[in-house]
């Protein structure tokens, strides 16, 4: 066998191996597909609201849950109107369902301000409410800031 007989074979093998390395064999380069939008429903939504409370009062905020899932609420801040400094006054925060002009409470906790979730519940898809109210320790008007996370 001579060099002339081997050269075509060598070229053929090199071509085959090179072709096997090409990711584009059989069509255009793979194009990343857009992710489906199914994750949006599972992404928790963070909301917050402020309420001005006097002794004995409570107030609530209604929101819509798009899919059943865990929800948390946090009493993030309590301050006096016109003041900056934080108060450590505990308040009652609750989850519930709007009924008439009120919020029918299903889960509730009394807690001082914090930056970690304090109240947890599983909420079904639909309209719910988060409530904040005096638990008996308010001596004057305060502004409460509540954060809640839900689906």
């Amino acid at each position, binding site marked *: 066998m001579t060099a002339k007989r081997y050269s075509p074979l060598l070229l053929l093998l090199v071509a085959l191996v090179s072709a096997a390395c090409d990711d584009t064999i059989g069509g255009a380069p793979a194009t990343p597909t857009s992710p489906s939008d199914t994750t949006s429903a599972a992404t928790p939504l963070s909301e917050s609201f402020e309420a001005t409370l006097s002794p004995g009062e409570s107030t609530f905020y209604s929101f819509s849950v798009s899919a059943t899932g865990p929800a948390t609420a946090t009493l993030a801040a309590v301050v006096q109107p016109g003041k900056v400094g934080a108060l450590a006054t505990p308040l009652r925060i609750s989850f519930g369902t709007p009924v008439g002009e009120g919020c029918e409470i299903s889960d509730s906790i009394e807690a001082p301000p914090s930056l*970690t979730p304090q109240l947890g519940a599983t909420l079904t898809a639909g309209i719910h409410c988060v409530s904040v109210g005096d638990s008996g320790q308010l001596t004057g008007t305060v502004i409460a800031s509540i954060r809640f996370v839900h689906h």
Partner: protein
Amino acid sequence: MQRHFRSALLCAVAVFASACGSDTPTTPTTTTTSPVTETWTGIVGPGGTASRSFDTTQAGTLTVTLMSSDAPLGLGVGVPRNVNAGCRLTISQVDIPGLTLSIPAGAGSYCVQVFDNGDVVKQSAFSVQVVHP
């Protein structure tokens, strides 16, 4: 000559085949970015406030320290307001330089606020260090 060509042929195939390995992703180098330390400087006037927001992507401890100030200032940590900007404080105290506030927090948006508690006559420069996840 034939033996040499056979060896060259095998060698060429081996070289090309080895170059044809799958593009297996290598494990990325893990860069530890938490905790994050930020230094914030500013000026507060009489009755004034100054606040700065930051985000955390994981739970952990927020620590703020009033590193320096021309006058005793209030220092606090809380959550950004939805309207009118500013900060609603979860914890606060009237601080002297060097004192620290720490509070556990989940992932989210937070703020640190410096405020005059009645001791600022003209204005007070300050420096605050914020450490967060």
